C-alpha cells in the first residue's frame, strides 16, 4: 500500500508587496501614498510524496521553492489550496507537526553561534522531549554518520561552513523526523563537504526510510540523491518526472573549462565537442555525454596540451528550465 507523506492540492500563495518609486521624491510620496502589488509566489501546484522518497524540488531564484517549503512546514498560510503533511494540515497543526518534521535552511543558522554544537543538540533533545538515553544513542549514530565527533565541543563560530552545515543537518535529525526539508543544504560548500553531506543523507534515507524534500541549485545534489525531480518556475509546476528522465533529456550536456600552461596557437577543436569560447590560455567546451564520455574528452584535452586546471560542470539549472519551456 502507498504511504503518502505529503499531499499537495492546488496550493497557492500570493503576497502583497509595497511599491516605492526610486529617489527622495519616491520616498516622500510613499509617506502618504503606498502602492501595493500582488505577487504570486506559488500558483496552483499539486503533487504527492511517498514515504522514503527523495524528491528534488528545483527551480530558479524566486520560483517559489522556499515559499512551498514554508507552507509545508506551517510557517506560511496559503492563499488557496490544501496540503497534508503526515496527515496534518501544516499551518493549523504546526506544533504537532514539529515533532515529526525536520528542516535545514542552508543560508540560515539554527545552532547557537557562541556555543559548541553539543549544547544545541542537548537543547533540541529537551525541546523535542527525547528520552536522554535514546538521545545519546541517536547523537552517537548521527555523529558517526556525519563524521563530526571532533567538532562537537568547538564553538560554532569557530567552525568552517562545511563543518557547521554537517552539524546543522545532524541537529535537525536528532528527533528522528519522518520527513526532512532541506533548502539548499550544500550552498557555498566545497566538493568534499558536499559529498560528505550527500553520503550522510543517502545513508539516513536507506537506514530509516526518512523522506527527503530537497531544493538545490546544484545538479550534483539532485543527480546523486534524488530519484524524482519536480521543477517549479514562476510559482508553477512545470516538470514532475524521474531524475533519470531529466538526465536523459537535459543533464546529458557537460561544460568543461580548461586553463592551459602554454598559450594556444591554433583554434582548439576536438571531435564531438563544441568550443564555446577560446582565449589565449583557455577554452570553454560543451559536449553531449551520450555521444562522448567525459573521460575521453579529458584525455583528449590533456593529450593536446599541458593543462593547469580543468573544471567540469553541468549546465546551469536556468538553462535546463529554459529548455523545458522550449519543448
Amino acid at each position, binding site marked *: 500500500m502507498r504511504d503518502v507523506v505529503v499531499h499537495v492540492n492546488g496550493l497557492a500563495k500570493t503576497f502583497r508587496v509595497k511599491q516605492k518609486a526610486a529617489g527622495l521624491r519616491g520616498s516622500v510620496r510613499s509617506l502618504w501614498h503606498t502602492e501595493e502589488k500582488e505577487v504570486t509566489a506559488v500558483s496552483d501546484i499539486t503533487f504527492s510524496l511517498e514515504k522514503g522518497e527523495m524528491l528534488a524540488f528545483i527551480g530558479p531564484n524566486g520560483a517559489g521553492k522556499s515559499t512551498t517549503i514554508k507552507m509545508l512546514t506551517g510557517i*506560511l498560510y496559503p492563499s488557496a489550496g490544501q496540503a497534508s503533511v503526515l496527515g496534518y494540515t501544516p499551518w493549523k497543526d504546526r506544533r504537532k507537526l514539529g515533532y515529526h518534521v525536520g528542516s535545514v535552511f542552508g543560508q540560515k543558522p539554527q545552532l*547557537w553561534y557562541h556555543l559548541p554544537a553539543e549544547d544545541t543538540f542537548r537543547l533540541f533533545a529537551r*525541546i523535542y522531549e527525547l528520552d536522554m538515553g535514546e538521545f545519546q544513542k541517536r547523537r552517537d549514530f548521527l555523529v558517526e554518520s556525519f563524521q563530526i565527533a571532533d567538532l562537537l565541543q568547538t564553538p560554532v563560530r569557530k567552525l568552517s561552513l562545511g563543518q557547521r552545515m554537517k552539524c546543522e543537518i545532524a541537529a535537525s535529525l536528532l528527533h528522528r523526523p519522518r520527513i526532512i526539508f532541506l533548502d539548499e543544504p550544500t550552498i557555498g560548500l566545497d566538493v568534499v563537504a558536499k559529498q560528505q553531506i550527500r553520503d550522510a543523507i543517502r545513508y539516513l534515507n536507506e537506514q530509516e526510510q526518512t523522506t527527503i524534500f530537497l531544493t538545490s541549485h546544484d545538479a550534483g545534489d539532485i543527480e546523486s540523491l534524488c530519484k524524482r525531480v519536480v521543477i517549479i518556475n514562476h510559482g508553477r509546476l512545470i516538470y514532475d518526472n524521474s531524475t533519470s528522465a531529466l538526465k536523459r533529456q537535459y543533464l546529458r550536456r557537460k561544460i568543461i573549462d580548461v586553463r592551459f600552461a602554454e598559450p594556444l596557437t591554433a583554434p582548439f577543436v576536438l571531435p564531438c565537442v563544441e568550443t564555446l569560447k577560446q582565449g589565449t590560455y583557455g577554452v570553454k567546451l560543451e559536449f553531449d555525454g551520450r555521444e562522448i564520455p567525459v573521460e575521453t574528452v579529458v584525455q583528449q584535452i590533456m593529450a593536446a596540451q599541458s593543462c593547469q586546471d580543468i573544471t567540469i560542470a553541468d549546465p546551469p539549472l536556468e538553462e535546463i528550465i529554459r529548455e523545458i519551456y522550449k519543448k
Partner: protein
Amino acid sequence: MLLQLRRTTTKYAAITMTNLQNQLAYVWEALNRAVFIVLIMFVFIQLWTAVYESQGATEIAGLSLAATIWYFLIAEVMELGKIRHDERISEEVKDGSVAYTLTRPYNYLAYHFFNGLGETAVKMTLIFLLGLPLVVYYAGWPTIQPQHALPVLLVAALAMLLDFFVFSIIGLLAFVTEDTFSFRLIYQKLVFILGGLMLPLDFLPGWLQPLARVLPFNLTTYAPAKLFVAFTWAQFWQILALQAIWLTIFGLVLLRQYQWATRQLAVNGG
C-alpha cells in the same frame, strides 16, 4: 500527565539554561555594557543631591535622598534588565530564521520568554552588582524589611511579565511591519516619563499623578522600585490589582494578535 508536565518544565528550563550559557560565553561584553549603570547612577546621584540641597529639604514627596538614590538603582535594574525580545522577533522575520523558531514544538512566545529570562538574569545581576558600591557609598544600605522582600519580588516578577506582554505585542507587529523600532521607542519614552524612570511618580505634577498611576507604564518600573524604598501594604495591594488587570488586558490582546500575526507573516529570503 505528570510526565508531560515534567517534560514541558525541562523543555523551557533548558531554553533558559542554554541562553544563560550563551551569555556566559561572552560575559565580558555583557559586563562592558553593564558598566553604563555606574555612569547613570553617578549622574543621578549628583543631580538629586543638588536638588535636595537646593530645596533645603530632607524629604521630597515623602522620599529621602537615600531612598531616591535606591529608587533609581532598582528602576534602572528593571529597565535595563528587560527582556527585549521584540528586537529578536524582528530580526527573525528579517533574516528568515523565524522559519526555525516558529516550527518547533513549543509555544513561540513562551520560548522567547524563557530564552530572555537567561539573559535578563545575567543583565539584572550585573547591573545591580555594579551599581551597588556607588549607591551604598552615597546612600547607605537599603532599609527594606525582610518581610517585605517577597511581596516586592512578586511585584518585580509581575512587572517583568507585564513588560514581556507589551514587548510581545510590539514584537509580533514585526510579522507585518518587519521593523518594530518606532513602536519600541514610543513605549520606552512613555516608560521614561509616565513609568517613573526619569523621576518617581510622586514628584510628578498633582494633576498627572492619578493618570500615571493607573496606566500600565508605571507598573513595570516605578512599582517595584517604590515598594523597595517605601513599602506599604496598601500600595502593594493596589499595584497588585492593577498589574492583574493590565496583565489580563494585554494577555487577551496578545492571544488575538498572535492568531492574526501568524496568518499575516511573510518571510523574507529565498
